[in-house]
C-alpha cells in the first residue's frame, strides 16, 4: 500500500539518522521474558560469551545468583565486577557497584534484573537509574526484565495473577531501549522447570509463587509480553515508513486523587494514550480544605502525580472547591477530548443522595467530551477516604471577635426594644435577630461566634420579648424552630465566610507567586553579568522559600564555582556547601536531572539540586536547602518556574558575552589588516628606491660622484627601513591586547641620553638640546620602547625642520606623571591632519606625497607604546612661532624600588 503521497518524510528520516549517529550514548539491549525462569539471564550470558570471543570488552556488572547450574557455568570466563557490599539493618547485602563500573568503562556491561530497587545508601534508588547513568557514559548495557515489571502493565498483571509486583520500571525506559530480545518458551516447559526446582530453590518456594505459576497465568502473561513486543515492532515500522499521523487531536485527561484507584486510572490512561499516540494530562484539584489533609493522603497524591509524570503525562494542579467545575474549565481551555475518572463504590448516604455524581456533572458541563469510568474495585479491603475533620481548626477564641459579637447582639436587642416601642410586630424582631446572627458570622472568624450568637439571640429573644417577659420560658411552640433556623443561618454564613476567606488567601498567594515571577523576570532582564544574575537568583530563592540557596556555575577552568546565600535564621545552613553537597551538584551537572533531598537520586543530601538547562546544555545548578524540611509539590513547581527564568537570563548573558568577544576579535583583525596594508605600502617605496639605485649602478657606467650619490641614497633608504622594522619589532614586544607592557624602573635621563645619542649618530651636526630634571627621576617603563618613541619623535622633528633649526627635548615631572616633550621649530603640523595624526589607516588619497613617510607608522607605534604604558600622548603646534610640540606622559608609581628589578623582564 505504498501511496506515492505517503513517501517517507525526509525530516523524519534525518531524525532517525541523527539518532543512529548519536553514539555518545550507550545502547541498551533488554532480554525480555514473561516470567522468571524463561532463560533471559542464560541468553544474556550466552551472547556475552560470543562478544568476548570476538574481542569485545565485556564486563559482568551484576548477575543474580541463579539456581540453574547451566546459567552459572556461562559466567565462567567472563570478567566479573565485584559487587558493592552494603549493610542494611544489620544484614550485608550485595549491590551493583555503579561507581566502579563507570570508572572501569567497559564497552558492554551486563546488569541483571533491571527493575531491582537498590538498598538505601546507594546512590540511586532504582537499578534502572544506574543503567541510565551507564548509558549516558557511553557504555552499552545488556539487561533482563519481565513483563510484570513494566509500569503501565503492573495492574493488569496484578489482576491476572493476584500477585502484587512492586518493583517496576517506567515505560519510557523500556520503549527507548535500542534492542529488545524476546525470550519465549512454552508455558508447559516453564511449569516443568518450575516443578523441577530449576527456577527457584524448592525450599524457597512460597504458596504465592505456586499461585503465580499456573498454566492460565503463564499463558496470559505470555500473551501480554508478546503483544508488547508486537506493539513495539508495529510502532517502529510506522515510524520508518513515515506513516505516523496523529489521530486528529485526541488529548486525554485523568483526575488524580489520593486513592489507589487513581493509580489504576493513571496506568490505564497511559496505556490508552500510548495506543492512540495521544498526549495526556494528569490533573489534581486542590480544594480549600486540602491543607488539612493528613500527611498520608498528601503523600499518595504526590506519589500518584509522580507516577503519572513517569509514565509521560503533563501534570497540572488546579484549585477550586467544585472539582467538576474546575476540571470542566480546564478541559475547555486545553482542548481535552477524553476524561478518565475512577469510581469507587460509595455507600449511598443521605448526603450523596442529593448530590449528582461527579461523572454526571462532568457530562452535564461538557457534553462533547468522552468520559471513561474505571471501576475502582480492588481485591482486599475497600478504600475508605478518611473522614475529614472539620472541627479543631476553626474553633478558636479571640477577644476582638467576642466584643464584636456582644456589641452586635446588644445593638440588636436595643433596636428590637425600639421596634416594640413603635409597635412593630414580633416577627420583625425575630428577623432582626436573624440578621444580627448573619452579621456576626460575617464579621467574625470561625463557627464559634456564629453559633454562640444564634444561641444568645434565641435566649435574648426569649428573655426580652416573649411573654412572660424577662423569663426564659418558651411558651410558643415555634421558638425551637426559630432557634434551629437561626442556628442553620449562622452555620451557613460562617461556612461561606470561611470559604471566601480561604479563597482570598489562596488567590492572594497565587497572585503573590505570579508577581514574584514577574519581578524576577524584570530584574533578570535588567541584570548584566553572570554574577549579578546569580546574586539576584539567590536573593529571590531565599526570600521566597525561606531557605538558604546555593547557585553553581561553570567556572572558566571547567570546575564548579558556587555562590551561596544563607537564609538568616536557618541553622546548619552552611552544611549546604560541604564537599558532599558539591558532589551532588556535580552529578546534577553531568546528568541534567534533579537530585538530592526528596528525589530518587542521592536522597541523603541536605539540599535539593536542580539543573538550569537551556537548549540541552546545563548552564548551572540551583540548590535549595532542605535541612529543615522537604519542599512540597507546589514549591517544587514554583522552583522550576524560577529556574527556567534564570536559564533564559543566563543564556542571554552568555550569548551577549560571546558576541562581544567576536566583536573585539573582529576589531583586532581589522586593525591588524590595516596595519599590514600601511606597512606594505610604506615598505614598497624605499625598496623600489634601493633596487632602482643598485641596478642603475650595476647596469650603467657612471662617474664616481653620481655613483656615490646613488649609494648614499641606498644607505638612506635602508636606514629608514631599519628604523621602520625596529618600530614594528617594538610593537611585538607589547602584549597581545596592547594593554600591558613589562615595566622596570629606569632613569629617565639614561633613556633620553641613549635616544639622543642614536639620533646624533644618524644626523650629525643637528642641534639637539636636552633638558632633564636635576634630581634623579625614575619611571617604570620598558626602556627600549620609550627610547623608540623618543627616537621616532626626534626623527620627525629633524625631518620636518631645517638644517640649523634646533630640536628641544624636555623632561619634567608633574602630578604623578613624567612628561616628555619634543619640540621643533620647523613648519609645524598642517591643521587638517592633526586629528588623525596617530592613526596609520587613513586612506591614501588624504596623505600627501611627502607626508606618507615617517608620519604614518612611526606615530602610530608611539601611540601604541604610550598607551600600553597607560600614558597619554598629544601633539599640537606651538602657540608662538613655528613648530610643533609632541608631548607624552607616563604614570609614575609611588615607590620605584628593587622589587621591580627582580621581576626579570624578558626584554
Amino acid at each position: 500500500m505504498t501511496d506515492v503521497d505517503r513517501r517517507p518524510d525526509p525530516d523524519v528520516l534525518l531524525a532517525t539518522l541523527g539518532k543512529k549517529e548519536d553514539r555518545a550514548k550507550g545502547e541498551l539491549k533488554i532480554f525480555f521474558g514473561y516470567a522468571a525462569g524463561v532463560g533471559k539471564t542464560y541468553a544474556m550470558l550466552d551472547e556475552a560469551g560470543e562478544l568476548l570471543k570476538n574481542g569485545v570488552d565485556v564486563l559482568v556488572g551484576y548477575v543474580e545468583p541463579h539456581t540453574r547450574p547451566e546459567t552459572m557455568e556461562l559466567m565462567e570466563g567472563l570478567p566479573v565486577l565485584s559487587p558493592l557490599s552494603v549493610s542494611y539493618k544489620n544484614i550485608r547485602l550485595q549491590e551493583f557497584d555503579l561507581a566502579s563500573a563507570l570508572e572501569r568503562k567497559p564497552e558492554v556491561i551486563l546488569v541483571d534484573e533491571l527493575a531491582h530497587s537498590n538498598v538505601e545508601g546507594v546512590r540511586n534508588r532504582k537499578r534502572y537509574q544506574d543503567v541510565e547513568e551507564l548509558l549516558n557514559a557511553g557504555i552499552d548495557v545488556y539487561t533482563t526484565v519481565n513483563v510484570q515489571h513494566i509500569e503501565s502493565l503492573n495492574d493488569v498483571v496484578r489482576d491476572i495473577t493476584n500477585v502484587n509486583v512492586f518493583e517496576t520500571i517506567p515505560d519510557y525506559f523500556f520503549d527507548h531501549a535500542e534492542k529488545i530480545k524476546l525470550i519465549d518458551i512454552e508455558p508447559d516447559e516453564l511449569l516443568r522447570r518450575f516443578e523441577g526446582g530449576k527456577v527457584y530453590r524448592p525450599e524457597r518456594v512460597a504458596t504465592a509463587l505456586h499461585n503465580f505459576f499456573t498454566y492460565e497465568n503463564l499463558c496470559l502473561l505470555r500473551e501480554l509480553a508478546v503483544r508488547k513486543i508486537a506493539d513495539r515492532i508495529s510502532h517502529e515500522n510506522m515510524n520508518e515508513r513515515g506513516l505516523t499521523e496523529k489521530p486528529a487531536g485526541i488529548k486525554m485527561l485523568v483526575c488524580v486523587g489520593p486513592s489507589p484507584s487513581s493509580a489504576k486510572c493513571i496506568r490505564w490512561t497511559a496505556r490508552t494514550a500510548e495506543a492512540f499516540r495521544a498526549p495526556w494530562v494528569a490533573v489534581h484539584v486542590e480544594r480549600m480544605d486540602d491543607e488539612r489533609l493528613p500527611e498520608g493522603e498528601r503523600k499518595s497524591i504526590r506519589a500518584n502525580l509522580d507516577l503519572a509524570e513517569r509514565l509521560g503525562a503533563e501534570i497540572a494542579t488546579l484549585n477550586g472547591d467544585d472539582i467538576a467545575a474546575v476540571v470542566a474549565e480546564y478541559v475547555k481551555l486545553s482542548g481535552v477530548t477524553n476524561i478518565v475518572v475512577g469510581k469507587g463504590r460509595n455507600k449511598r448516604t443521605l448526603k450523596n443522595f442529593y448530590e449528582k455524581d461527579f461523572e454526571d456533572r462532568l457530562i452535564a458541563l461538557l457534553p462533547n467530551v468522552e468520559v471513561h469510568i474505571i471501576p475502582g474495585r480492588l481485591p482486599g479491603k475497600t478504600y475508605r477516604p478518611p473522614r475529614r475533620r472539620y472541627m479543631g481548626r476553626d474553633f478558636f477564641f479571640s477577644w476582638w471577635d467576642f466584643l464584636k459579637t456582644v456589641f452586635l447582639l446588644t445593638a440588636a436587642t436595643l433596636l428590637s426594644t425600639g421596634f416594640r416601642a413603635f409597635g412593630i410586630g414580633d416577627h420583625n424582631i425575630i428577623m432582626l435577630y436573624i440578621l444580627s446572627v448573619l452579621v456576626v458570622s460575617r464579621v467574625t472568624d470561625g463557627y464559634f461566634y456564629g453559633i454562640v450568637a444564634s444561641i444568645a439571640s434565641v435566649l435574648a429573644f426569649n428573655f426580652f420579648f416573649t411573654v412572660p417577659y424577662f423569663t426564659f420560658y418558651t411558651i410558643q411552640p415555634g421558638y425551637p424552630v426559630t432557634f434551629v433556623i437561626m442556628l442553620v443561618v449562622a452555620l451557613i454564613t460562617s461556612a461561606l465566610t470561611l470559604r471566601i476567606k480561604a479563597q482570598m488567601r489562596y488567590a492572594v498567594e497565587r497572585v503573590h507567586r505570579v508577581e514574584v515571577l514577574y519581578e524576577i523576570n524584570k530584574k533578570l532582564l535588567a541584570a548584566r553579568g553572570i554574577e549579578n544574575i546569580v546574586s539576584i537568583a539567590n536573593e529571590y530563592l531565599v526570600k521566597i522559600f525561606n531557605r538558604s540557596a546555593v547557585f553553581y556555575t561553570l567556572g572558566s577552568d571547567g570546575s564548579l564555582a558556587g555562590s551561596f546565600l544563607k537564609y538568616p535564621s536557618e541553622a546548619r545552613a552552611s552544611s549546604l556547601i560541604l564537599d558532599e553537597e558539591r558532589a551532588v551538584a556535580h552529578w546534577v551537572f553531568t546528568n541534567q536531572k534533579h537530585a538530592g533531598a526528596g528525589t530518587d537520586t542521592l536522597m541523603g543530601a541536605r539540599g535539593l539540586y536542580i539543573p538550569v538547562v537551556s537548549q540541552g546544555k546545563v548552564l548551572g545548578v540551583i540548590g535549595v536547602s532542605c535541612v529543615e524540611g522537604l519542599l512540597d509539590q507546589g514549591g517544587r513547581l514554583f522552583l522550576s518556574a524560577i529556574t527556567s527564568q534564570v536559564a533564559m537570563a543566563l543564556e542571554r548573558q552568555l550569548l551577549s558575552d560571546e558576541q562581544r568577544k567576536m566583536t573585539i576579535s573582529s576589531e583586532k583583525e581589522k586593525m591588524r589588516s590595516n596595519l599590514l596594508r600601511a606597512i606594505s605600502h610604506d615598505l614598497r617605496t624605499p625598496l623600489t628606491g634601493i633596487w632602482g639605485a643598485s641596478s642603475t649602478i650595476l647596469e650603467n657606467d657612471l662617474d664616481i660622484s653620481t655613483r656615490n650619490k646613488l649609494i648614499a641614497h641606498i644607505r638612506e633608504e635602508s636606514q629608514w627601513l631599519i628604523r621602520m622594522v625596529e618600530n614594528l619589532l617594538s610593537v611585538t614586544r607589547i602584549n597581545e591586547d596592547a594593554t600591558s607592557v613589562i615595566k622596570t624602573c629606569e632613569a629617565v635621563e639614561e633613556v633620553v641620553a641613549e635616544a639622543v645619542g642614536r639620533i646624533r649618530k644618524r644626523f650629525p651636526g643637528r642641534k639637539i638640546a636636552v633638558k632633564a630634571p636635576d634630581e634623579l627621576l625614575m619611571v617604570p617603563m620598558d626602556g627600549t620602547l620609550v627610547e623608540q618613541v623618543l627616537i621616532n619623535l626626534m626623527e620627525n622633528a629633524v625631518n620636518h625642520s631645517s638644517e640649523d633649526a634646533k630640536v628641544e627635548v624636555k623632561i619634567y615631572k608633574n602630578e604623578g606623571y613624567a612628561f616628555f616633550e619634543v619640540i621643533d621649530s620647523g613648519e609645524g603640523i598642517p591643521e587638517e591632519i592633526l586629528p588623525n595624526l596617530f592613526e596609520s589607516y587613513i586612506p591614501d588619497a588624504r596623505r600627501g606625497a611627502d607626508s606618507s613617510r615617517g608620519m604614518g607608522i612611526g606615530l602610530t607605534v608611539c601611540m601604541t607604546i604610550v598607551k600600553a604604558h597607560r600614558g597619554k600622548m598629544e601633539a599640537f603646534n606651538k602657540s608662538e612661532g613655528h613648530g610643533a610640540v609632541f608631548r607624552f606622559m607616563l604614570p609614575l608609581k609611588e615607590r620605584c624600588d628593587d622589587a621591580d628589578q627582580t621581576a626579570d623582564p624578558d626584554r
Partner: protein
Amino acid sequence: MTQIKQLILIAEDEESICSFISAILEANNFKVIKTAKGGEVVALTASHCPDLILLDLGLPDMDGVEVLKAIRAWTDTPVIVVSARVHEREKVEALDLGADDYITKPFGTGELLARIRTAMRHGRGNANETRGTMDTFAVGDLSIDYEKRRVFVAGKEVRLTPIEYKILVLLSTHVGKVLTHDFIIKKIWGPYTNEIQSLRVNMANIRRKLRENPAEPNYIVTEIGVGYRMVEEMESDGIRTV
C-alpha cells in the same frame, strides 16, 4: 717592515653581513677567517689563535651563548658578540659569561673598529696591566689621578664619595668597554647584593658632579638594559664616536 696583521675570526651565518665585515676589516689591516657554524669556532680558535672573535649570537647550529662558554673554558681571546637590537637579555647574558663587548646590527665602520680596538686593548689578559702601568687617566676634560685619588674636570677638582670614585675608576680602567650592571655591582658592593637602584643613583650623582647634562652624558654612556661604558675618544665638538 710589514706590520703583523692581527687576525680576526668572524662567526656569522649571513653571507652579506659577513662579507661587508670582512671588507671593513681587510681594508683596515686585519686578517680575517670566516665561519658560519658555531661548532667550528672552537676548533678554528684553537688552530689559528685569532686575536679577536666576532661572534654572532644567532648562529643556526649552536646557541651563541654555548659557543661562548666553550671558548671561555680555555681561552681569554677577546670576544665581541654581534646581536640584534632588541635582545638585551642575550647581550647581558653573553657579557656575564665572558664576552668583552657587543655590537648591534646594523653598525657602521667606525663603531666596529672602535669596539675592536677597545676589546683588544682591554682583553682579559691585559686588564691589570692597563691599570698597573698608568698613574693617571684622561679623556676629554676629565682626568683622574689614581695615586692621589683625585678627579678633575677642566682643571677643577670634583669631590666624589668613595663609592662614586670606585665606580669611576672601574669604568676608566675598562675605558671603551661596556660593563654590565651586575659586573659593576659585584665589583663595588660584592657578590651577594642587588643594588641596582644605588648604582643608578650613584651614576646620576657622578654625572652631575662631572657637570654633565645628565641627558647628554659625554663621559659615561648608558646602554639601556645592559650597563655603562666610559667613552674612549671624544671629538672636538663634543660628539662621541663610540
